[in-house]
């Protein structure tokens, strides 16, 4: 109860601070932005660059185009569309990460051979990768079911999500003390039993931080993937579309951005909730 109250207060407080910063800067900042040595270090504050918070919020209630659906509905639908890619990418990425971690823990050779590639995989810029994946996807089909653009987005989300899980879980699986491993050996426990009874439970403190990173990475991957591939239906697409109208309807693009941020928060919330539920069953002194 106390904990929940503090959480709600924290969320509200953060929102209030955000609004105050936004409006405060808008009130005192130079409308043309601050330029130092020829570089703009602070953004412009006029209504075209930084609409008032209430303008943005009221924009949610107005129709997207004259006579169309209200924008909150459009953004919500786009977020749900993107959520599918995020969710599947997160789960699949988590499983791939877990599998890689188990493999690397099991075989030193694999760890030595694979880990550099796992790390290398994350240094490839997403913007460069997205078109390649979209291109491959275009030539694939799942049985008779043709490859859909959102699947490419899912693959990118997965590609980013597997990494923190693989690295975090590898550390977690390697975390048991030698004495615990000797104990399992003394019971003549096999590799599988040792994994299930010792390594996996010992790695839960590493699992949830990894999952939180993976969730954030999946959202970023999906949204950026949609933006760079222009996938129809997702919130990333809305960001591009609305930003083209920035001169005539500056508040619009911010509604899409708030939608993307809310998506990230919702996914982080789900991970946090599951951690809370798992943690509640276990006392930690």
């Amino acid at each position, binding site marked *: 109860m106390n904990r929940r109250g503090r959480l709600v207060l924290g969320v509200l407080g953060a929102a209030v601070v955000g609004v105050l910063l936004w409006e405060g800067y808008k009130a005192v900042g130079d409308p043309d932005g601050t330029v130092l040595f020829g570089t703009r270090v602070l953004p412009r504050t006029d209504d075209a660059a930084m609409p008032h918070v209430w303008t943005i919020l009221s924009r949610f209630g107005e129709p997207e185009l004259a006579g169309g659906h209200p924008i909150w509905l459009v953004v919500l639908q786009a977020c749900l569309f993107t959520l599918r890619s995020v969710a599947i990418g997160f789960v699949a990425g988590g499983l791939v990460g877990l599998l890689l971690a188990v493999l690397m823990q099991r075989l030193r050779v694999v760890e030595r051979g694979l880990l550099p590639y796992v790390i290398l995989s994350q240094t490839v810029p997403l913007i460069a990768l997205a078109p390649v994946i979209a291109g491959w996807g275009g030539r694939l089909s799942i049985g008779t079911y043709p490859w859909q653009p959102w699947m490419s987005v899912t693959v990118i989300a997965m590609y980013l999500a597997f990494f923190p899980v693989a690295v975090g879980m590898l550390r977690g699986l390697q975390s048991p*003390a030698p*004495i*615990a491993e*000797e*104990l399992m*050996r*003394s*019971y*003549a*426990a096999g590799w599988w*039993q040792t994994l299930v*009874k*010792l390594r996996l*439970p*010992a790695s*839960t403190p590493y699992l949830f931080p990894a999952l939180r990173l993976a969730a954030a990475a999946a959202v970023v991957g999906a949204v950026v993937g949609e933006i760079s591939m222009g996938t129809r239906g997702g919130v990333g697409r809305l960001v591009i579309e609305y930003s083209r109208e920035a001169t005539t309807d500056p508040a619009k693009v911010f509604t899409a951005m708030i939608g993307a941020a809310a998506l990230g928060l919702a996914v982080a919330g789900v991970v946090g909730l599951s951690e809370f539920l798992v943690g509640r069953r*276990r*006392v*930690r*002194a």
Partner: protein
Amino acid sequence: MTAVVLEGVSKVFNAGRAGEVTALTGVDLTVASGEFVSLIGPSGCGKSTLLRLVGDLIQPSAGTVTVAGKPARTARADQEYGIAFQQAGLFDWRTVQRNVELPLELRGASRKERAERAREMLELVGLAEFAGHYPAQLSGGMQQRVAIARALAVHPPLLLMDEPFGALDEMTRERLQDELLRICASTGTSTIFVTHSIPEAVYLSDRVVVMSARPGRITDVVPIDLGERGETTRQSPGFFTGITKVRKALRGDAMPLVSA
């Protein structure tokens, strides 16, 4: 039938590399079935190493280790022994009860059987009311007792115990010594027991194996004959004679006793 036979066993850690340590050299030791043998000696003389060799947790550099008439490796696969390490080594995500159940679980015991046996063992070590606690909520001595309960839970034919009572208060220690002797006698369990306490070694053992360090080796074996242990054993002259003998052996024969 012998429980454990070590023949010409040596153990060198990091052989041929920097930090080479000869932990044990030329160890010959036979533990008869049902016999209680204590290992005593200065810190670093290889007592824990000897236990690990018997448990096939490390391999000897030379010599052979036979447990229950089989190579140590086979004996481990057949789960011929239970071990309690110098540190408790509990799983901190399991309750006390589930920690004790772990070896039973791995042997495929039924849920009911596991719970019963764990209860019984926790009662024995005086921790029944802590069954639902987590290891982090217990004191060091209590954790050690859980580890003892865990080692005893499967009633192994051979018990390997590494300073199991080190962290306990004197009263609990004496009570657990008696319980351990009772269990070993009633189930015919053979025991190798590491301790730093001379009275403890003498009270518990049929034989006390005295070791010395650098390199680790057996220097003496002191037979103890106290008969049935009881209330009066700790005050008996035989007990004090045993203590004197072991102390003398620990000092080395070259050094004469100044006084008794």
